[in-house]
């Protein structure tokens, strides 16, 4: 048996940033070192885009713009709603497999678990957004505005990714199992589909239109489209929704972690 000498105790507890950084680093390593996750995300986003563009697209009339130009900005803006299930699943997995317990038994702020996770998943979401945009160009999308406008629109999509990450994290925390997290994340589809993202909202029956109009995805998508046409209508509303969602869901996640 080896002799074991005492291990030093750190003089102080880790700061919020340092702890968040470690939580993020671990989630990123897991993602990068699981090639299956990366490939699945790319295949999934390409598959859906392909179906919309070439299968449903022909039957959808988007006014004066061609359907591909109508679809791609919205699709990039909402891609995280399709891939975000992975976030809910990862959070639920950590909870079920004891990793969250380990983190919570350490002298770190509960917010570092949320912030670290959000940092990591937002980074992987930027990757999703970029690859999805690339597929958009591949499938025939042409930027109607300057590159600068395009970058502004992309930046907005990245901001949404942070928002959606926190929302999916909360789903994962409330789910009792990994399967439940997977199921719960399908709620996002309701918001994605009943919005102006893939079809003009005016083509929906009248009773459905109020839902489409007053839920956050529609102004978020419209804001991205407007940036690409050189205007900035809806951007204020979209940012307000984003801020509201982050401000509501972040403390919910931190509180839930405390009780996990």
């Amino acid at each position, binding site marked *: 048996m080896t002799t074991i000498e005492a291990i030093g105790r750190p003089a102080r507890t880790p700061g919020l940033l340092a702890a968040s950084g470690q939580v993020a680093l671990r989630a990123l390593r897991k993602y990068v070192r699981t090639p299956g996750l990366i490939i699945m995300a790319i295949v999934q986003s390409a598959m859906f885009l392909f179906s919309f563009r070439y299968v449903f697209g022909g039957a959808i009339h988007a006014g004066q713009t061609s359907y591909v130009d109508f679809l791609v900005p919205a699709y990039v803006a909402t891609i995280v709603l399709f891939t975000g299930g992975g976030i809910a699943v990862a959070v639920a997995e950590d909870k079920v497999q004891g990793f969250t317990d380990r983190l919570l038994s*350490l002298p770190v702020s509960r917010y570092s678990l949320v912030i670290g996770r959000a940092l990591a998943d937002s980074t992987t979401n930027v990757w999703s957004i970029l690859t999805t945009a690339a597929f958009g160009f591949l499938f025939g999308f042409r930027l109607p505005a300057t590159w600068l406008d395009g970058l502004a629109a992309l930046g907005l999509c990245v901001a949404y990714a942070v928002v959606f990450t926190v929302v999916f994290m909360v789903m994962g925390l409330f789910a009792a199992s990994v399967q439940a997290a997977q199921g719960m994340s399908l709620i996002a589809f309701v918001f994605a589909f009943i919005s102006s993202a893939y079809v003009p909202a005016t083509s929906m029956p009248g009773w459905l239109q109020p839902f489409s109009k007053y839920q956050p995805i529609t102004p978020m998508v419209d804001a991205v489209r407007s940036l690409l046409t050189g205007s900035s209508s809806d951007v204020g509303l979209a940012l307000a929704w984003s801020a509201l969602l982050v401000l509501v869901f972040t403390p919910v996640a931190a509180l839930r972690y405390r009780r996990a």
Partner: protein
Amino acid sequence: MTTTMAAASPPLIEARGLTVRFGKVTALDGLELAAAPGQVLAVLGPNGAGKTTFVRSVATLVRPAGGELRIRGRDVVRDAGAVRREIGLAGQFAAVEPTMTGRENLEMTARLFGHGRRAARQTAASVIDQLSLDEVADRRAGTYSGGQRRRLDLGASLVGGPRLLLLDEPTTGLDPAGRREVWDAVRGLAAAGTDILLTTHYLDEADELADEVVVIDHGRVIAAGTVAELKASIGQDVIEVAVADPATLTAAGQILEQVTLGPPRLERGGRHATAPAPGGSGQLAAVIDRLAEKSIGVDEIALRRPTLDEVFLALTGTGGSANDETTPARAGQITAGSKS
């Protein structure tokens, strides 16, 4: 301040009326416990007795519905941050990141305990050395054997230099070699002066590792003391017979019953019969005589102190799934004695 601390060093763990509920289920029901520092304390109990909930309470992971729980004098609710700096938790599942190497896992946890980058690297290296993980330290944890994974998990709970190590069923699901590895590591840590609270439903594990044992059932402490005290509290020595031919086991059991006037326990399909022997060596002699009269061949016969198994069975009336692989002799009686 320092003088009062030194004058009366607070108990390692002190629970008063500790009650934890999950919805309508009462997991801990007014649990009372006081454990002195400087020891390995084992919490024993059947599945669902509240062992894990108790460890999670100590680890500040559940909020008690009532009562008090203090770790080295610090309240787990009001002073949770301070308690977290005192403890290291290794849970039922090895909570290590499989896609990261052992070293990366340890360095990450060290940083989360508050170590700077350099200190984290040094701490990880010393834990790797102490737990003999050198050869696998730079491989991904996902490629480890069960025993290696648990040792890494144990290491992760050590990097903060905890005063109290919490091990929730540290060897569940490991093969015998893996259990030995973990046991050696635990003994080494205890020898180095770390206080350890471990839960187990393996009675031999408590016997091997623990200074004191607390038996809990239905969320309460039903017995506490050293292993020797617990065995003594059951009082009676036990006669154990191993017959040469399994077919003669029933007959041997009848002889045990006639002599000791107590119901014997027979190993179903095996060769072992045991019975408490209040009459001690006199009864042993009588059993030997009668076995010889009936010409029942015996491989082994002994008068001995009860095992922790038998103590546990006497206290709880259930055996859980304890011990079936290490002492197959008692597997039969445990099945017979359980409620299901």
